[in-house]
Structures are given as structure tokens and as C-alpha cells.
């Protein structure tokens, strides 16, 4: 792999995988929690939360990136506080992960929410009458039955995080080895004469990873669905 990919290209691929991995890992529990709140709870401000979650999907990515920069930059309100704790997002790979996570979040929540809504409330009631407290109803009935959707949402979010460009480049720029993910690298290669070859290799890698993720999600979802569906 490293033989075929130059060190610069390999760096971009490895960084993208790392960024997408952490972005997905951190957004998964939050995504499940938010999806559960949107699917099963009623509380004041529910529509506001729903809108907020979906905002990155409809805003221009550059706007999302700029808002992240204003909020999480070293002089931003949240970024400043976190910087005192030693957590820095600006112009680091962690910032790229944050941007990717935020952009992928709506897709993840949407898939998980739909799968939670598809779980029959009657089964949750049955679980409660058998003595299960609410947390256990969720862990033993809702979560396993929503698993196909959670898997699909996670893989979709991972693929989206791999390909995130606009918000990332606005928030954390395009620094080799730090924030130059595959899309940023392709963009950078296309800016210099003779970079088309490297760009093409990264395009191939992108397609392979995206297709692989899609197939994997199909296989896992089908297996889980068979388990959940009985037989």
C-alpha cells in the first residue's frame, strides 16, 4: 500500500481514517442519546434540538466551519475554556475530527432515530411489566432491536466523516500531517502542476473505502436483522 501510495498520500489516507474513526466513536453515544430523546421523549425545545441537529445538513459547510472556528477557536468562548484544560481544536487533527463529527451527526441521528421509532412501544411496555426499569428496557429491548439502524447510521457517519471537506478546511485549514485529510489533499494536489496522478490515487482510495463501508453496512445490517427478526 505504502509502495503504491507516496508518503504524502499515505499520510492523508491514514489521517482521514483516524479523523473519521474518532469522529464516529465520539458522536455515536451522543447520537444514540439524541435520537432516543427525539424518538421517544417529549420535552420543551424538542423542535429546537431537532433543528439544531439537522443544521449542518442544510447550512453551507463553510458556514458550519466558520461557526466552529468562532466557537472552538483558541479565542472562541468554548475553545478558550478548553485550551486552559489543554484541549486544543484549532488547526489540529482533533479539530478536523470535530468538524467531521458535526457534519456527520445529522445523518447518524436520522438513521438511529428512524430505527428507534420502528421499535414497537408494546414490546417496551412488555419489558416494563416484567420488571425492567427504564434504562434496562432501553438496553435489553430498544437498543438491540434498533441495532440494524444504529449500524447503518454509524457506517454512514463514518463515510461522511471521511469525505468532509468544506467545514474542515474552513475550521482547521489544510496542514499536511495535521488536518490534510483525503479531500483536502486531493484539492491541494489539483492546485499544483503534475499533481493529478496523486489526486487520482486518492480518488481511487476514496471510492474503495466508501464502497467497502457501504457493503459492510449491508452485510452487518442483514445479519443483525436476521437475528432480531427471529427464525
Amino acid at each position, binding site marked *: 500500500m505504502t509502495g503504491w501510495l507516496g508518503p504524502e498520500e499515505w499520510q492523508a489516507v491514514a489521517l482521514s481514517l483516524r479523523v473519521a474513526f474518532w469522529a464516529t466513536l465520539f458522536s455515536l453515544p451522543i447520537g444514540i442519546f439524541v435520537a432516543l430523546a427525539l424518538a421517544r421523549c417529549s420535552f420543551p425545545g424538542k423542535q429546537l434540538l431537532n433543528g439544531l441537529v439537522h443544521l449542518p445538513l442544510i447550512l453551507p459547510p463553510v458556514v458550519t466551519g466558520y461557526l466552529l472556528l468562532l466557537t472552538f477557536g483558541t479565542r472562541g468562548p468554548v475553545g478558550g475554556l478548553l485550551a486552559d484544560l489543554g484541549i486544543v481544536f484549532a488547526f489540529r487533527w482533533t479539530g478536523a475530527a470535530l468538524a467531521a463529527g458535526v457534519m456527520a451527526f445529522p445523518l447518524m441521528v436520522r438513521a438511529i432515530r428512524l430505527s428507534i421509532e420502528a421499535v*414497537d412501544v*408494546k*414490546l417496551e*411496555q*412488555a*419489558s*416494563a*411489566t*416484567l*420488571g*425492567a*426499569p*427504564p434504562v*434496562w*428496557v432501553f438496553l*435489553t*429491548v430498544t437498543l*438491540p*432491536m434498533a441495532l440494524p439502524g444504529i449500524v447503518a447510521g454509524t457506517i454512514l457517519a463514518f463515510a461522511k466523516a471521511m469525505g468532509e471537506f468544506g467545514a474542515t478546511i474552513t475550521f482547521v485549514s489544510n496542514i499536511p500531517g495535521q488536518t490534510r485529510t483525503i479531500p483536502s489533499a486531493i484539492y491541494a494536489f489539483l492546485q499544483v502542476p503534475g499533481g493529478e496522478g496523486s489526486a487520482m490515487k486518492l480518488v481511487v482510495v476514496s471510492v474503495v473505502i466508501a464502497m467497502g463501508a457501504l457493503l459492510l453496512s449491508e452485510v452487518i445490517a442483514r445479519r443483525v436483522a436476521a*437475528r*432480531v*427478526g*427471529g*427464525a
Partner: protein
Amino acid sequence: MLEVSLRHRFDGFSLEAGFRAPPGLTVLFGRSGSGKTTVANAVAGLLMPEEGRIASGDWTLLDTSAGVRMKPHRRRIGYIFQEGRLFPHLSVRQNLAYGGWFAPRVAPREDMGRVVDLLGIGALLERRPGALSGGEKQRVAIGRALLSAPRLILADEPLAALDEARKAEILPYFERLRDEVSIPILYVSHSASEVARLATTVVAMEKGRVVAQGPAAEVLGDPAVLPAGAREAGAILTAHVARHHDDGLTELDASGIPLFLPQVASPPGAALRIRIAAHDVMLSRDRPYGISALNILPGTVREIRPGEGPGAIVAIDTASGRVLARITRRSAQALHLEPGVAVHAIVKTVSVAPSDIGGGT
């Protein structure tokens, strides 16, 4: 003794029901829309009524005046739902064990092996609910409720989704539950024959109100209480198997009066309860001779209730118990029937369906 009193309003429907369920099997009996399932859900805690009290001894599930509203998972009620509601992602064994994971350690528990034997589900344990038939699912659902160490078993029309053959398969398990398990059972049904076979106590509901409650024979023998309609009227008699005859008939002893039924599987001496549908009973002032019907019960008319159509329900007290007859008002007049008059109730042997004959008292 479970005591329930509830008041709740939905759009266009108001429920105001109070009843007591002594030990044994209490059937909430009424047509669909009479509020039975609402009561069941309130007992289970799946519905919070506006006002009410549900308690059994010092165990209070709900008391709105005292601000007590126990959460469903703390109520320890084994709820058997109409559609089973087995967990599709768990095996039968895991479904059965589910309630045990949450029951208090000190709670008296049924033994898994005993319940599996009682319900005949030993061969199904490793399967998933998706691979079970309707009757098998419902047996597993019964087992799951039993094994959650419940203080009360609640069954909401557990047979309604099954065909006749499956009903006949499951009914005996509820009889065994009633006779062999000491947990009180609250059973919701609109089926007269289920009530007749299972009920120790009947609570009859109409339009959100309790119209009668008491021992099964008493409530079902009251022509004023027909929660399922006059067509479904029928009283229950208890009798013992006397002997089996070679021609396929079983002779019963109903307090001294012989009754002939199509072959019953129970051995001589066994107690049976038989539902005699009111529309299967003929009346005669004189003791009939030269008649094909084998069962003739002499008695006296207790009450006559004209129905809305041309029919009337006549209640007759016999030595074997109360019998209801559904006849036309014209016949009632022609026979000069009135309370105190001696009549003979005539029941054809073949008109007693096997599904109307149950074990136990």
C-alpha cells in the same frame, strides 16, 4: 383480595369502575369497547387514570388521593398480552428468563422446569419467537409472565388472536394455572365460553361501568346481566363424571340429575363445569315423553326478562343449578310462564360443545 376503583375519561368515553377480585381467576367480562382493557392497563400501570385506587392488602399500586403512582416495573404483574409480545431478538429460553433478571431476590419464584412442563414448551427453548406458531407463542407468553415472580397475573384476551383449534389448545393451561398456581389471575375476555370455563369470579362490564360482580355461576345465571348480548347468554352447571357409556356418551351427575354429554375425556369422579347456552334450551310445562333430547331438568321459573326483539330470557332454578333459556315472548305467553311456575328445561346432548366443558370447579 385485589381491590380496584378507577375513574378516567378519554375523548368520548368515561370509565368509572370498581370491583374486588378474590383469590382464583377473576374474569373482566364485556363486549369490546366496554373498558376492560383500560382497566387491565391501569392495573399494570401502562395507563395512569385520573383518579383511582388499586390495592391488595397492604400492597398499594395506585392511590391518587394519597399521591401513590407505582411505576409499571415495580408492580410485579405478569401481563399476558393478546398478541403475546415476545421479544423477537431473544430465544424462548431468554424470553422465559427475562422477568427473573429483575424480580427481587427474595420473591417466591416458580421453577423454570415446572413451568416448562406445565406449558409443554420444553422442545421450543432454543428457538426464536419468529419460528413459533400462534399457540406456541401464547404458551411461552404465559410462561414468561409466570416466571417473573408476579403477585398477580393479568391476561388481556390472551386467546382472541387464535383460531378455534389453538384456543382449545391453550384453555386447559389457564385451567391448570387457576387450579395449580396460587397467584390470583385477572383475565379479560368477551367470550362467554371462556368465562364459563375459567372464571371463579365474574366482573361484568358495560360502557365503562361494572354492571355485576360475584361468583361465576351467580353472575352468568342472572338474565339481567348479559354483557356479551342475549345471543351469548348461558348459565354454568357443575357436575361430576358418573360413567362413560359404550355408545360414546358420558353420563354426569349434576346434583342427582343425570346429564348426558358427548364423550368427555375426564375420568369418573372428576368435577366438570358445563356451559349451557340459553339458545340451546327448550322449555316444556309437562315432562316430555317421546322426545329425542336426553337431558331433562325439572325446575321452577325464577325470572323472565323480555329482550329488545321477539325473544325473552327465562331463568329456571333446577336441582343442578340455575339454567337460562332463550325463547320467544310468544312461547312464554303460550306456556303461561311466570315466576314460580314448574317447567322442564330440555337440552340436547349434542348441542353442548366440547369448548363449553371445562375441568375444575
